[in-house]
């Protein structure tokens, strides 16, 4: 099926600085796609290129198979929700929301009707007569959304729209955004640096780092099966243990580390044996075995036990892995009640829960 939007091998530079390099992104109809990356990764530049605020230096930008690179901002069938909302402060909320229809020369009666509908959709039914300065941050956010959806774009671009809101409001707006996207059936391209937000909202996440795509996939896939050290450590907590690949048997890999042989699984083609790799295992996937002499796994000494309510976070050290703190998250039940710093334990995990990562070349 032809994608709605296709960025094909896009590159962009500012002077001598290459900000995007070989970016390939497709957006499907009705999809909630998140572009996730740290600040300076180039994610906002990607959004500005789609919106038409920036040109590209290489590659192509296609919308339903048509080349978009020569189409100006105001002729692209997309609308943007800006990070600072960029509301027109001299207009009322209703005038802000109706602006897109007004500049298209629609009749006043039609504009008034659509504005009322859209304000209802975003839950601001009675506030059309107010000015943006008279509204709270969350309400302004909804005005910006209403203004973006009124022209029924094929795609909405959202540039870290929740970053200015406090934690509680942010969670509420996340639920609202997700349900709005479902109801409207419009593709959302959402930019954020917040991995929890990305996981909670997205159908698909593209992880960007230093102007390149690190990995893309469904949130669960990215979380469970990271393929690069960056993705493994940027999305949630991860223990990364370095070693060399000793043996491969199908998906199952044996990694020779300073602390002994460890099991992991690989997605796609395995690297050559003998190459430098990392074993990535989530703190919640590590099991503790009180018998330090049990076969397989990693022996370690408890350094710290932190009670977090439902969970405990246990930090452990292995003398063969200097500087590496191994983190283990367990339910705070009886099995960890007696655990004290200084205790020797054995750490084990299912090979399926440990991802083999190739070191960056």
């Amino acid at each position, binding site marked *: 099926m032809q994608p709605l939007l296709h960025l094909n091998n896009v590159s962009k530079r500012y002077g001598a600085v290459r900000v995007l390099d070989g970016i390939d992104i497709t957006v499907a109809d009705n999809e909630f796609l998140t572009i996730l990356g740290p600040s300076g990764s180039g994610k906002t530049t990607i959004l500005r290129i789609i*919106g038409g605020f920036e040109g590209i230096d290489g590659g192509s930008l296609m919308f339903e198979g048509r080349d978009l690179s020569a189409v*100006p901002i*105001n002729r692209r069938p997309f609308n*943007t929700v800006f990070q600072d909302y960029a509301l*027109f402060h001299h207009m009322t909320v209703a005038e802000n929301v109706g602006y*897109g229809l007004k*500049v298209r020369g629609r009749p006043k009666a039609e504009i008034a009707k659509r504005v009322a509908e859209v304000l209802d959709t975003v839950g601001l039914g009675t506030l059309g007569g107010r000015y943006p300065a008279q509204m709270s941050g969350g309400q302004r956010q909804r005005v910006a959304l209403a*203004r973006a959806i009124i*022209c029924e774009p094929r795609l909405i671009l959202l540039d870290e729209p929740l970053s200015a809101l406090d934690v509680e409001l942010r969670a509420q707006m996340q639920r609202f955004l997700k349900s709005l996207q479902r109801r409207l059936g419009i593709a959302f391209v959402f930019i954020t640096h917040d991995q929890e937000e990305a996981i909670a909202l997205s159908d698909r996440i593209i992880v960007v780092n230093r102007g390149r795509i690190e990995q893309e996939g469904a949130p669960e896939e990215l979380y469970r099966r990271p393929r690069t050290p960056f993705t493994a450590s940027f999305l949630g907590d991860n223990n990364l243990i370095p070693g060399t690949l000793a043996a491969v048997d199908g998906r199952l890999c044996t990694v020779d580390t300073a602390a002994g042989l460890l099991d992991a699984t690989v997605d796609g083609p395995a690297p050559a044996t003998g190459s430098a790799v990392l074993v990535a295992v989530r703190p919640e996937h590590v099991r503790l075995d009180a018998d330090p002499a049990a076969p397989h796994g990693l022996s370690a000494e408890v350094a710290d036990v932190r009670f977090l309510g439902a969970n405990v976070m246990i930090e452990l050290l292995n003398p063969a892995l200097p500087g590496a703190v191994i983190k283990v998250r367990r339910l705070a039940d009886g099995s960890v009640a007696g655990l004290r710093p200084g205790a020797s334990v054995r750490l084990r995990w299912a090979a399926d829960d440990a991802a083999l990562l190739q070191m960056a070349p």
Partner: protein
Amino acid sequence: MKQKAPFLDALLGLVAGVGLIALYAPLLATAALSFFQIVRVRGKLGFAPFSLDPYVALLANGEILAALSTSLVVATMSSLLALVLALMFAFYFVSARRGLGIAMQTMVFLPFLLPPIITGLSLLIAFREIDLGRGLVTIIIAHVVFIVPVVYRTVLVRLQLLGSSLTEASLDLGASRVQTLRYVILPQMRPALISGVLLAFAISFDETLITLFVAGSQTTLPIRLWAMMRVGFVPEINALATLIFLCTAAITFAIGLMQRAGERV
């Protein structure tokens, strides 16, 4: 907490007070003399009782009224023309490459910063070279030349403050450049536009030296005032000076209000 320094506060107050008195005493004296004329009674100087006679005489003076109307026409026309030019220069400055923008800005500022006598003289020579007869048109051109920088500065500051995000939002919603200018940029800049025009109006209204070079047979109010002084002092001069002062003060006050309104947007 603000530190209290009574001695320093008192000293600053004193300096400011003396400064203000030095600035305003001559104006107050002029205003007072326009209401209470000095008269010689049996060989002694004294003040006449309160009277509006100089103002009545002023309004009856056809030459002064003609000069006033010339001044109003010149100030209105030149400040509006300057506004249009200043807007164009300011838009150019924010969109052009930095070097070109600064070169343009220097050229805009120079006529204002040069000694008026140089600006006036060069305008006079230029008008003669292109064979433009001196009169209302040359006065307006000359005024535009030296008030554009003032409007430009006011407009540019506001434009830079607006930034690009509102323009981007407007284009993103499907508006053309012209619609963006009309519905978003100009309304957001209105306080700056009004205060720029008022400032330009006040400066144009008061300008004398450059106008002298290019006026030809036309007479603006300051030139009329200058001419009256040369042939001998009459009480109307005090009245006229007082009126000009009051008008300028009112305009300045209005500019202050506009700038506060601009900060709120």
